[in-house]
Every structure is written in structure tokens, then in C-alpha cells.
């Protein structure tokens, strides 16, 4: 077990020294403390190497210590691509490095770095574009070399869920700006949600040094956090990532296994800024870190980052880092300042007084590696002679740690998603954001402010703007100014031997970006697609700014003109489990559902309903359907039709309304009668059908198809919002359970249960409507003939549905009643030649094509689609839905098979079944108009074979309709 030396408290804000934990990395045991990240615990044990780079397999170690780089991606058990600098250690966890061949320490693929010139920029893009088939040769090699992490194929899903959240004001980021904004908004009376990505509030106050003495940040942090915690109006969410901004402040927040969907009235983005690296040769060696990473290591985790450091800086913050290092026992060999001018005198004096050498106007030109590029051992320093140019002469310093800062890039992602514009301020060498939508505010370093006072004031101002919008305050904003210019304008020092990385994730060097522009990819978006810059896990947090600068320079434009690539959601990687977890998938069941299950029904979806297809095992489907159909024809069957859509039309204008909606005439439909009702849309296409019952002069009950009723109901209500007829339209699908009792013995079964309706043919004829009681249950009775036998549709209030089913099944026992399913019903109606809208029709089918002109009344002044029907019917008709027949031993066409006319497609088969009643294969198909008369034949292509079918007159069964009218 490795030794472990930590800095003394108050260093180590996040760790609990009372709770040691052990874990393993690469098979070796390590110890850390509760609160340690995997990376901090490993660094405390001097284990720097955590992964190998994507392309060249170079050794990599933490760069940011804040989850903003891809260097710390490790495999944690079955989960690949876990950020070691964000994931906290737990007792016994097993982590491993990624992207190596052999061992992490001795990666056999490290040689790839020497072949860099054979894998130039755009390598994948250019190599696999053409010729055709080249991908097949390369795929296995690339999959092997370029993959990150290992998938656990025996993965078991865990419980992830979602929740909505609501707040007046959300503050994203709890640095000084965010804390200040949250307190101001809460003091103003708003409810505030403060969202922080890290486990601890404070942002830069938790790690950054703001003054020479080094007290300010801690004092201020304690003070602000105490106030926040004590405030009743503030709710705090730590360890929570705001992953995007969507319209009207709809924000996805991810915390643990829960995905929150936050709706905020006002949104204050205080997301901070990303410290930027300096581009020089070997700037990726382990031991080279951002200044903020080094202070995070010390302050948050009490880890001493090295013994001898060099600080490379473009601003004053590097000096403060040097002081912090010195205080924690790290020798500082030199501060290498990119700037020619000195910082403020007190700061310079303070570091010089402590014996730190300051080298102005110089840069680290190359970092010197130990064997195998495992760690930094020194730096070569050169004087800057012009932008990006250095002197010939060099000084070498030994060190085991290099801290660097070239300035900051605003964490602009959420704001750009909200529509903000990025523009580059040449003077400050920094991007600024403007043009925010109403209700979105910006505060702090993301707003280009860097001194603590300015940042705090800016936070308060953002809160004041939010309070204005909420009408909670009329307070005026305070002017804010900040003189600090932490960005050095050209921290890029290209080296002839390369390995001067712009993008660590994708192993992209300065020349790769420049070469992309030379190949003609001048637009920064094209540079991204060609070179893959910014496409890695860190999504351009560090590569965007140097890329913009390089593209601007090599295309003779300004950085504002080149801009940066779009930052789309998600901000941080999110798991599919977060998106997929707890998906709502509503299922609708009829009240008889459990009876069907008890009877062994094969249930199938019908919209979001579940319906019995037939009763029996799926292996013998055809047998069950045939038996059920024969039973209905010979005896009596019962089918649950509760899913049938239902709409009631009531009021003085009910008949007028029906007359306008449906194609048929309804004004004079007699009370107590049903009528077939077809609906066309404004294009004249048949979109639904049903049966209309006239219950009284001003009351219609009309059915619609299971999947079509929602649309029919919406169309009806929309039409009447315009027509203003005296009519009420009520959707009653779920209010009624319904069955169809069908077969020669149907009357005998029903008679046993009904004593208030005369069921005789004379008193209750075909197509009549009656009301009464079945087994004491109030019922609507319709004599309809969809399956072509004597039949009663019985509609009862849903609460009685199961009792009705039981009563009918019980009364039917003597007559050998048998339930039948939807697929059987489809066969039965096909035998009768009835079409099913949307199965036997398509988006072009007008009434003429479907032989439904008998159901269209063209004498009434209007129905929806009437004019379009007139227009299409006046055109020469090209196709028609016909019935066809084939011998039982023929190959059976399936729905969708093509009907051919010569070498042209004339139509397709829409329904096709074996019919024992017809002793044939029967079906419906769209055929060429020339082949539509009975006696013609049509050619159907079935699996490459062409079959000739006879066109026959419909219906196939009981042509005189004697059976249904019994």
C-alpha cells in the first residue's frame, strides 16, 4: 500500500480524514479519504498516469481536476468513461485506465505517437471517405485502437427517474457571483434555486487565491454560505449539473440517478470561466496542470502536487498560485510570465521577497519528459520575440510540476443555447456574451469580470434584473467595472516537432488546425468537422479559444469573425439511463381485460389499447381464427368492442351538425335507427367511419374507429368553434363498454337477459337502435351487421362491463357461446366485404375508389370535404378497391403485396385471409380501374412470384345479406 502524505487542515475542504477508504486502480490497492475523487486519491499516492490519449496513446494525467478534460476518463467496474477527477471514491471500488494495449504503464501502442505524420489531420475523414469498401479493411483495426472503455454486456438496468421542479429564480453556479445573486434575489422576496455542479458551494472561493495574504476567499466563502444556508427562500442543489438551456427557462438538471426538469421564471447564469492552457511542445505531460487544478488539489483535497514547480502565466493569478504553492511546501523554481510588463508592485514584491525568480516576456517552449513521457522533469524557457515566436537561446529549469494559465474562456454553453452572441474583445483578448433573451441573466466571470468586488456586484445586478422582471423590486443596478485583463492574447508557441496540443481529447496539435484551414476549411465549423477539434468529451472547453485564434490568424480574419463552434446540449455527458429512466407508456384496458386473460387470449396492441386477437396460443393462430369464425357463422360468438370510439352529439342543431361532418344525410334519420357514417377530410379523403344512432331528435350517438376517434372528436370541436351551432360534443369512448353478440343464436342468448325490449325481428329489425336492460344493466342495443350474422352491439356504462360479459357468457353456455378476437372479426368482416378505414384505405382514397358513393349525399349544401370530393370524382378514376379470390391451395398474398398492371404498379393488397366460409383465399386490393369489374383478373406479386387472382363481386359471403337481417 502506497504511503500517503496530505497537507494540514484547513487544506482539504472536501475530504474527511476520519474516514479512510481503500480502492483499487489497475489492480493495485490505494487508500484515500471519503470525499476524495479517484484522481485526488491517486495523486495523493503519486499515481499520476490515469489514461492514454485517444490517438497517440500518450500518457495522460489530470489537467483541470474539475471534470473538464478527457485525461481522467477511467473504467469504473462495468462503466466506461467515468471522470476520475469528479467521481468520488467508495470503499472497494475497482477502477482501471482506458485506451491502452497491455498495461497502462507499458502501453504497446505508445509507438503510435512516432507515426503521427502518417495520421495527419482529417485522417479518418479522408481515409474512409473513398474508395467504396475501404472502411471494411480498416474497421477492425480502428475499432481496436480507437475505442474508449469497455462495455459491460451483462449490465442490469437500475432505477433512474425524473421529476419536475419549479422556482422563481434559478442561479446556475455557486461561485461568488452566484452566491451574491442568490442572496440578493432571495432578499428581494423571490424563491431561489441555487445549482452547483461540485459537492461544495463557493466555486472559485473554494480553491482560488484572490489576495496576497490568502485569507479573503475563505472568509468570504464562509460568510456567504452561512447566509445562503440560513435563508428561507433559497434551496440548494449541489452535485447537480445543469445540462442545457431550453426555451422559456426549461432546464434539465442531473443529480445522481434523477433527471430534473426545472421551469424557472428567471435564470441567472453564473457558470464561471474555464482557465486556458498554453500551447507548447509536450504540454500534455503528466505533471503539467492548470493553476486552478493545482490549487484545487491543495485546497479541496490537501494533496501536495509536487516538490519543485514552475509557474507559466499570462496574468497575475499565476503569481498568487506561486504563493499558494510556496505556503504548502512546494518549491517554486520560477514564475515564467508571458507578459513583458510587471504585475502590480505589491504582488511582484511579495513573490520576489520570498525568493521566487520571475522571468518576464518568456514562455515554456518545450516541456522535457522523463522516460516514456511519464512525467515532466524540466522545462526549456525561451524569450518571446514576436507573437508566437521565440528566441533561439534557451534556459532549462528542472521541475516536477508545471502550473499554467493563459487566461479564461467564459463557460458560454448555456447562454449560447439561450441565443446569446459571442464576440471577441481584441483588447481584453476575451470572448464576451451579449443579446440574452428576456428572463436570462449573466453574472460573474462568464460575463468577463474577474476581480472579486466586480463579480459580487455583478451577481447582485443580475438578481436586481430578475427581481424587476418578477415585479418584486424597482431597485437600480450598481455600476460595475473591472480593470483586470487576465487573458494573454497569443499563448500559442508552435514547435517544429509538434506535440504542441490544442485539443488534448483528440490529440490535435497547432499545425493540425492550421493545415485544416490550408486545405480550404476556413469556417470554424468546417475545421471542427474535418479535424474533430472540440468533438471530444471536453467539448472545446480548452480547444475552442486557441482554435478560434489559429483559424483567425491563418485566414486573416478577426476572432469575432471566425467565432467558435456551436455548443449544443448536453453540457456534460448524460447517461441514456437518465433519458430513458421511468418512461411513461400508458396502456388502456377494457373492463373485460382480465376475463380475456383468464380465457387465454393472445393480446395485441390497438393504439394504446390491448385487445384479444384470438383466444389461444400464437403457435396455432390460423386454427383459432378459423374455429372462432366458423363458430360465429354456425352458433354464437362474443367480442369485446369497448375500444370502439364513441361521441355524443346533442342539442337543437345535432342533426345539422351530423349533416355537415359526415358525408351521408342525417337530417331525416329516424329516431331509433342507425346509419353508416363516413367522414372525409377537407381533401376529400376518407378518414374514418362509424355508425350513427339517433337516440332522439336532438341526440346522436356515433361510433368511430378505435384509433381515429381522438382525431374525429378534435375535428368536430374545431369545426364547431367556427360554426357556432347549438350543439354539445362529448367524447364518450371510455364511458361505454361494448360487446358484439353475433351468430344465428344471438337472439336466443340475449332473450334470456332482456325483458324490457322486444327482440323479435319485427320489433327490433336490422339497423335499429333500442335502449333497455341486459341482466339488469342499462344498455344501448344496436342491430348492426359488421360480421354479417344476426348480431347485437350492446353498449353499457363502463363500470358494468365485466358483469355484462359474465352475464352473456353465462347465458350463452346452453348455446355453446365462444369469445372471438379482433383478428377473427377482421376475417368475418372481410367475408362480408366491409372495409376498415386506414387498413383498406390510404391517404389518397376518396369515396369513389372505395365504392362508397352510396354513402355520400351530394344534394345537401355542405359536408367537410364536399368540394374536394366533387373535384376528385370529376377526374377520370384510375384505381379502385376490389375483392379478389384465390383457390385455397394457392400462395397466399399478404397485406402490402403489389398489384401489377403490365410492368406498372396499380395498387396493393390491403386485406387477405383464408376463408372457410368461402372455401378460398379472399382479399381486398387496389386494382387498376380497367381491372376492377368482377370477372377481370389482377396480377399480385408475392415474394417474386406473380399470381393471377379473380376479381369478384362483393361480398364474398351471403350476398343477399339474409343472415344479418334474420
Amino acid at each position, binding site marked *: 500500500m502506497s504511503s500517503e502524505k496530505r497537507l494540514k487542515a484547513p487544506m482539504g475542504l472536501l475530504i474527511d480524514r476520519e474516514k479512510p477508504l481503500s480502492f483499487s486502480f489497475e489492480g493495485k490497492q490505494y487508500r484515500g479519504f471519503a470525499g476524495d475523487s479517484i484522481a485526488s486519491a491517486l495523486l495523493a499516492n503519486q499515481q499520476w498516469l490515469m489514461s492514454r490519449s485517444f490517438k497517440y496513446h500518450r500518457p495522460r494525467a489530470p489537467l483541470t481536476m474539475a471534470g473538464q478534460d478527457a485525461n481522467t476518463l477511467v473504467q469504473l467496474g462495468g462503466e466506461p468513461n467515468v471522470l476520475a477527477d469528479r467521481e468520488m471514491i467508495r470503499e472497494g471500488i475497482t477502477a482501471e485506465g482506458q485506451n491502452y494495449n497491455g498495461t497502462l504503464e507499458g502501453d504497446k501502442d505508445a509507438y503510435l505517437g512516432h507515426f503521427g505524420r502518417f495520421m495527419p489531420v482529417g485522417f479518418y475523414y479522408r481515409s474512409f471517405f473513398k474508395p467504396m469498401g475501404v472502411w471494411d479493411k480498416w474497421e477492425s483495426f480502428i475499432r481496436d485502437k480507437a475505442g474508449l472503455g469497455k462495455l459491460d454486456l451483462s449490465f442490469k438496468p437500475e432505477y433512474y427517474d425524473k421529476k*419536475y421542479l419549479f422556482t422563481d429564480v434559478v442561479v446556475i453556479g455557486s461561485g461568488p457571483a452566484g452566491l451574491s445573486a442568490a442572496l440578493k434575489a432571495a432578499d428581494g422576496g423571490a424563491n431561489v434555486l441555487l445549482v452547483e455542479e461540485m459537492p461544495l458551494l463557493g466555486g472559485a472561493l473554494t480553491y482560488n487565491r484572490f489576495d496576497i495574504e490568502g485569507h479573503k476567499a475563505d472568509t468570504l466563502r464562509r460568510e456567504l454560505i452561512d447566509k445562503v444556508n440560513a435563508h428561507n427562500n433559497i434551496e440548494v442543489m449541489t452535485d447537480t449539473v445543469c445540462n442545457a438551456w431550453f426555451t422559456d427557462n426549461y432546464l434539465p438538471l442531473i443529480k445522481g440517478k434523477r433527471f430534473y426538469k426545472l421551469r424557472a421564471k428567471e435564470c441567472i447564469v453564473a457558470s464561471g470561466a474555464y482557465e486556458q492552457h498554453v500551447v507548447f511542445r509536450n504540454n500534455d505531460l503528466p505533471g503539467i496542470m492548470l493553476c486552478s487544478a493545482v490549487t484545487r488539489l491543495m485546497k479541496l483535497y490537501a494533496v501536495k502536487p509536487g516538490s519543485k514547480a514552475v509557474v507559466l502565466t499570462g496574468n497575475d493569478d499565476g503569481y498568487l498560485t506561486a504563493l499558494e504553492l510556496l505556503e504548502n511546501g512546494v518549491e517554486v523554481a520560477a514564475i515564467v510570465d508571458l507578459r513583458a510588463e510587471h504585475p502590480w508592485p505589491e504582488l511582484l514584491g511579495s513573490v520576489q521577497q520570498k525568493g521566487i525568480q520571475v522571468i518576464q516576456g518568456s514562455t515554456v517552449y518545450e516541456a522535457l519528459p522523463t522516460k516514456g513521457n511519464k512525467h515532466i522533469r524540466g522545462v526549456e524557457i525561451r524569450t518571446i520575440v514576436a507573437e508566437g515566436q521565440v528566441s533561439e537561446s534557451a534556459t532549462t529549469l528542472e521541475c516536477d510540476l508545471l502550473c499554467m494559465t493563459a487566461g479564461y474562456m467564459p463557460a458560454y454553453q448555456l447562454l449560447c443555447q439561450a441565443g446569446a452572441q459571442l464576440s471577441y474583445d481584441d483588447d481584453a483578448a476575451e470572448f464576451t456574451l451579449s443579446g440574452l433573451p428576456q428572463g436570462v441573466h449573466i453574472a460573474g466571470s462568464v460575463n468577463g469580470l474577474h476581480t472579486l468586488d466586480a463579480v459580487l456586484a455583478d451577481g447582485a445586478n443580475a438578481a436586481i434584473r430578475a427581481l424587476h422582471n418578477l415585479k418584486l423590486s424597482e431597485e437600480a443596478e450598481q455600476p460595475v467595472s473591472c480593470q483586470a485583463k487576465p487573458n494573454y492574447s497569443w499563448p500559442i508557441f508552435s514547435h517544429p516537432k509538434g506535440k504542441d496540443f490544442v485539443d488534448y481529447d483528440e490529440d490535435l496539435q497547432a499545425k493540425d488546425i492550421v493545415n485544416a484551414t490550408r486545405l480550404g476549411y476556413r469556417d470554424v465549423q468546417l475545421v471542427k468537422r474535418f479535424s474533430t477539434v472540440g468533438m471530444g468529451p471536453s467539448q472545446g472547453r480548452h480547444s475552442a479559444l486557441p482554435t478560434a485564434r489559429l483559424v483567425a490568424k491563418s485566414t486573416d480574419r478577426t476572432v469575432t469573425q471566425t467565432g467558435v463552434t456551436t455548443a449544443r446540449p448536453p453540457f456534460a455527458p448524460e447517461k441514456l439511463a437518465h433519458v430513458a429512466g421511468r418512461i*411513461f407508456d400508458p396502456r*388502456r*384496458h377494457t373492463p373485460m381485460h382480465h376475463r380475456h386473460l383468464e380465457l387465454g387470449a393472445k393480446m395485441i396492441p390497438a393504439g394504446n389499447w390491448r385487445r384479444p386477437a384470438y383466444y389461444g396460443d400464437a403457435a396455432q393462430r390460423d386454427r383459432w381464427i378459423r374455429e372462432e369464425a366458423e363458430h360465429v357463422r354456425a352458433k354464437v360468438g362474443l367480442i369485446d368492442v369497448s375500444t370502439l370510439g364513441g361521441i355524443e352529439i346533442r342539442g337543437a342543431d345535432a342533426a345539422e351538425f351530423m349533416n355537415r361532418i359526415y358525408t351521408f344525410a342525417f337530417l331525416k334519420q329516424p329516431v331509433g335507427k342507425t346509419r353508416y357514417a363516413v367522414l372525409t377530410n377537407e381533401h376529400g379523403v376518407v378518414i374514418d367511419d362509424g355508425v350513427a344512432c339517433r337516440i332522439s331528435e336532438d341526440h346522436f350517438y356515433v361510433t368511430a374507429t378505435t384509433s381515429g376517434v381522438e382525431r374525429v372528436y378534435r375535428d368536430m370541436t374545431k369545426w364547431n368553434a367556427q360554426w357556432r351551432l347549438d350543439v354539445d360534443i362529448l*367524447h364518450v369512448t*371510455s364511458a361505454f363498454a361494448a360487446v358484439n353478440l353475433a351468430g344465428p343464436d344471438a337472439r336466443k342468448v340475449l332473450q334470456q337477459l332482456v325483458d324490457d325490449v322486444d327482440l323479435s325481428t319485427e320489433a327490433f329489425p336490422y339497423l335499429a337502435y333500442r335502449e333497455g336492460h341486459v341482466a339488469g344493466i342499462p344498455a344501448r342495443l344496436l342491430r348492426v351487421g359488421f360480421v354479417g350474422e344476426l348480431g347485437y352491439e350492446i353498449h353499457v356504462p*363502463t*363500470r*358494468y362491463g365485466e358483469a355484462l360479459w359474465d352475464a352473456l357468457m353465462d347465458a350463452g353456455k346452453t348455446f355453446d357461446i365462444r369469445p372471438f378476437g379482433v383478428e377473427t372479426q377482421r376475417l368475418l368482416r372481410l367475408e362480408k366485404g366491409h372495409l376498415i378505414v386506414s387498413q383498406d384505405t390510404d391517404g389518397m382514397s376518396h369515396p369513389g375508389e372505395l365504392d362508397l358513393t352510396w354513402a355520400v349525399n351530394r344534394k345537401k349544401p355542405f359536408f367537410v370535404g364536399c368540394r374536394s370530393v366533387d373535384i376528385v370524382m370529376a377526374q377520370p378514376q384510375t384505381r379502385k378497391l376490389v375483392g379478389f379470390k384465390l383457390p385455397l391451395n394457392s400462395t397466399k398474398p399478404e397485406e402490402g403485396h403489389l398489384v401489377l398492371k403490365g410492368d406498372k404498379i396499380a395498387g396493393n393488397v390491403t386485406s387477405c385471409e383464408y376463408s372457410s366460409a368461402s372455401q378460398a383465399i379472399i382479399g381486398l386490393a387496389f386494382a387498376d380501374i380497367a381491372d376492377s369489374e368482377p370477372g377481370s383478373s389482377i396480377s399480385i406479386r408475392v415474394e417474386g412470384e406473380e399470381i393471377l387472382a379473380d376479381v369478384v363481386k362483393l361480398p364474398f359471403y351471403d350476398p343477399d345479406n339474409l343472415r344479418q337481417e334474420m
Partner: protein
Amino acid sequence: MTVIKPELFHSRSFIYRKHRQAEFAEVNGAAQTLSYAGQDDPLTGLIDLSVLPRFGLRGPQAGEALIAAGLLHPQQPNSLTVSDDGVMILRLGRTEYWVLALPNAAAERDLDALQQQLSGPGIYPVYCHDSYTWLALAGENLADIMAKVCAVDLREDSFAPGDLVMTSLARVGGIICHHQMAGKPVFSIFSDSASAGYLWDALLDAMAEFEGAPAGQNFLLSSQ
């Protein structure tokens, strides 16, 4: 004495099979869950009230008819009132009203007679007893629980007692009504009777982290 079971009646709750361990009483010609056997009162209860009496009416004359019948009706669209004798009246939109008997109110009021009385031109019945299941979510953390299935802010500040919203919950349409019983906040939820079982399961899942459990109507009548 016969043990009351849902199957004894023609009229049944859409989800009576969910209440295997419950004790029932006969209400309105059906079995109403009284309590779940062998269970202490949970912090939050989910109660199936689907069989309780209720009817709906709508149309231009519906509001006037309610006033004429001596029933105060909610003044604002999307609100509700509860009378002293346990009759709840919902106003859905501008011209639709539902009249419901809360648990134990059935004895006081004959809703069938009332429904007969509330008819005439410009008044159309609404079959809310059969189209909708009636579930009551009562007790603590109601807004938090609902936030796991519903995108509308149902915290007390924006959804006070007497408020009603028509929205989507767990991706099915529904009506959520805020009222109180025995000092407990109650969300009465009305949703498609065909997906009642689905919604029941979705709500129980949402309640689990708050120590919620199914309960009977006694939970609504006992003050804690």
C-alpha cells in the same frame, strides 16, 4: 353477514383487482375500499374512489340550473367548492360541472334525484362516473409526489385548496383537484377509466420514496 367483495356487484371499480387485501363496504351499489388490512396509516395514501356517486352536466344552462337547485357552484372556471354535507362541485372550463359525493356524504344526499332535477334544455349529461376513474392522493408531500408525474406546479402557493387543473399526468390526460378532508390535504385525480390501472401503478411508484401506500376511504375520514 356476507363479506363485501367487489365481484358481488354489477358495478365495479376499474381497478378493483388492485385491492386484494382491502376491506370493503357497500356504497352506491358497489364495493368501496374502507381500509387495507393489517396496515398502519401511511404518510400519504392513494385511495380508489371510483365507485362513489357522481355525475356531470354541461351546456349553457348548466350553471344556472345548479344555482336554481340551491347548489353553490364555483365562480371561476377550473375551480371547485365543497359543501358542508360533503358534496363537491367541480367547474371544468366555463360550462361543465361535476357533482360528486365525497366519502360518507352519500347518506346525506341522493345524487340520482339531484341529477333528474338538473336536466332540461341547454343541459347535457356528462358520463364522468364511467369515463373517469377517481383516485384520491392524501396526506403529505402531495406536490412532490405529483412533480414526478406532472409538469404543472402543484405546490400550495400556485395550487391552493379549491383549485383545479386539467393537464397531463404520466402522459395521460387528467383533472387534479385540491381540497381537504379531515384536515388533510387531498388531491382528487380524475383520469381515463381505461388507463386507471396504469395510473394507479405510476402513482404508487412515485409515492414510494415518500412512504406512500394504497389506503381505503377511512384514511380520508380519520384526522391524524
